[in-house]
């Protein structure tokens, strides 16, 4: 990244910080993401109520000072369920992104470095995975190998692979013709070494932005799978499953359907804002277009 002419002499870190503090999407996205992550972490130590403790006398209670978001059909505290559900959503989406990056980025970087047949085969394979409706395949995988958080992670992770492969390849292809890689080649470095030393550090920003987007999509996909009963299994609460259980009780207790859904929307919105903000910050070319 070159220095911004508007801020001569400023250290890159200070300049980045100043831009970050001026970027509204980034700030709001960061705040929301930290809040959700904090909520999930807090749930390991403390929740308002113990959700394994079923109090049927308190079932389907509305909002009150003792149960801020009400209770479900088994008398469990909704706020506590949402806090623990956040753990599940975040864990599934993060591991799926790690799987996608771990396989996709080396593949994409390899395709870009080798070119020719390797590139062609890998990219056609990518197109093929894209031709399968991701959610349908995820449903197939979880239904065949059994429902559960682990299979949901694998199913979502597989579909992150071609996304990261494509982004890594496109990014790497734009770095290869640059002078510093040419110099590295002239110095006799191997393509693999150049990829690790020069290409990857230069596409980190791209991958980070794509990572946030896939994280958000992963949250949505996990919610969809667990709504269909294919995600985390009870008694582990998950936002999608809470919505499924709410559907038949919506007439008597609409709050059951409202809050888990809001939790999904707020989380995804936060991550998307964070992604937008990061892209603006990390890619000066796009910043000017706004």
């Amino acid at each position, binding site marked *: 990244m070159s220095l911004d002419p508007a801020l001569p002499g400023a250290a890159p870190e200070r300049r980045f910080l100043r831009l970050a503090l001026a970027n509204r999407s980034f700030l709001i996205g960061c705040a929301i993401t930290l809040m959700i992550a904090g909520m999930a972490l807090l749930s390991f130590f403390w929740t308002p109520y113990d959700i394994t403790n079923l109090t049927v006398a308190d079932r389907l209670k509305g909002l009150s000072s003792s149960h801020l978001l009400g209770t479900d059909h088994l008398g469990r505290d909704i706020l506590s369920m949402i806090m623990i559900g956040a753990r599940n959503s975040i864990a599934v989406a993060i591991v799926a992104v790690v799987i996608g990056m771990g396989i996709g980025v080396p593949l994409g970087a390899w395709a870009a470095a080798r070119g020719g047949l390797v590139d062609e085969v890998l990219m056609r394979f990518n*197109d*093929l995975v*894209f*031709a*399968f*409706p*991701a*959610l*349908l395949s995820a*449903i*197939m995988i979880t*239904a*065949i190998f059994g429902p559960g958080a682990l299979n949901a992670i694998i199913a979502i992770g597989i579909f992150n692979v071609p996304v990261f492969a494509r982004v890594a390849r496109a990014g790497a292809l734009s770095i290869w013709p640059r002078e510093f890689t040419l110099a590295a080649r002239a110095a006799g470095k191997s393509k693999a070494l150049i990829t690790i030393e020069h290409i990857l550090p230069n596409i980190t920003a791209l991958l980070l932005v794509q990572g946030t987007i896939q994280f*958000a999509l992963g949250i*949505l996909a996990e*919610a*969809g799978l667990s*709504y*269909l009963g294919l995600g985390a299994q009870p008694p582990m609460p998950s936002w*999608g499953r809470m*919505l499924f259980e*709410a*559907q038949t009780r*919506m*007439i008597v207790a*609409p709050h059951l*359907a409202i809050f*888990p*859904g809001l939790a*999904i*929307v*707020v*989380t*995804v*919105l936060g991550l*998307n*804002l964070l992604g937008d903000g990061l892209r603006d910050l990390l890619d000066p070319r796009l910043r000017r*277009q706004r």
Partner: protein
Amino acid sequence: MTAYLAKRLAIGLVTLIVASAVVFCVLEIVPGDPALLMLGMNAEPEALATLREQMGLNQPILLRYLDWVSGMAVGDFGRSYTYSSPVIDLIGERVLVSLPLAIMALVLSTVIALSVGIFAAARRGRPADTMVMGVAQVGVAIPNFWFALLLIYLFAVWLRLVPAGGFPGWGAGVWPAIKALIMPAVALALPQAAILARVTRSAMLEVLGEDYIRTARAKGMPRRIVLWHHALRNALIPVLTILGLQFSFLLAGTIIIENVFYLPGLGRLVFQAITQRDLIVVEGVVMLLVASIVLVNILVDIGYAIVDPRLRTRR
């Protein structure tokens, strides 16, 4: 143009063949013997063997694959184990629900997204733009099945305007059938429209910064004509790309949405078939969905050529 089309068709065909091999192999390694599932755990070994013979499960895998593919090529998708009727009949019934639903959702989301995107781009930076795009930002984050639940609560439970779910069938008349599909279509369309509107806006903004737009305005052409004729046409390429990608999301979305609204469509069929291990149905429906995605991608490629004549002469 012919060469362009031929190449697209060839790529589509190869995709289909590879996809069929993948689907077949994946379902081949599924735990669970379909013959055993049909007859139950207490089945006589002899009866089991006979059924396996009848279903062709004893033949080598390659032969069964070729059998299956060549059957599909002439419209024979095999027989469902659980429904004991031809898969093609099951699909035929369900398509009449899923296809109208997908088309309604696609048209709705495209119309909304294009008008909102163009509206916002034409008012770039003004309050209307900020507001509309803020709504779109939230819309992108809304899961369609949650939106569906909210619609059910609002329009079916509270206002009692439409049924909360189910499908009366086209035999009950066109209007009742359409009425049952409106809410599912809206639930599918709006989150998609939010994504597409954002793409449309940024594509329009990029085009509006081009020299030829300034030239057109400078020679006195009305703003509206510049916007709709010069800008929109050039902005359509990225919009078409996303539209093609969204079609597969839309198909997948119908699986969840059909479950939310209890609609007897392809999504529910495949979901039930998976849980009942009725693999031949799963294979058939998945191939049909992949084929329709391939077809839509070819249509998108043709769309590129219509929008941008330069592409027609390229290889």
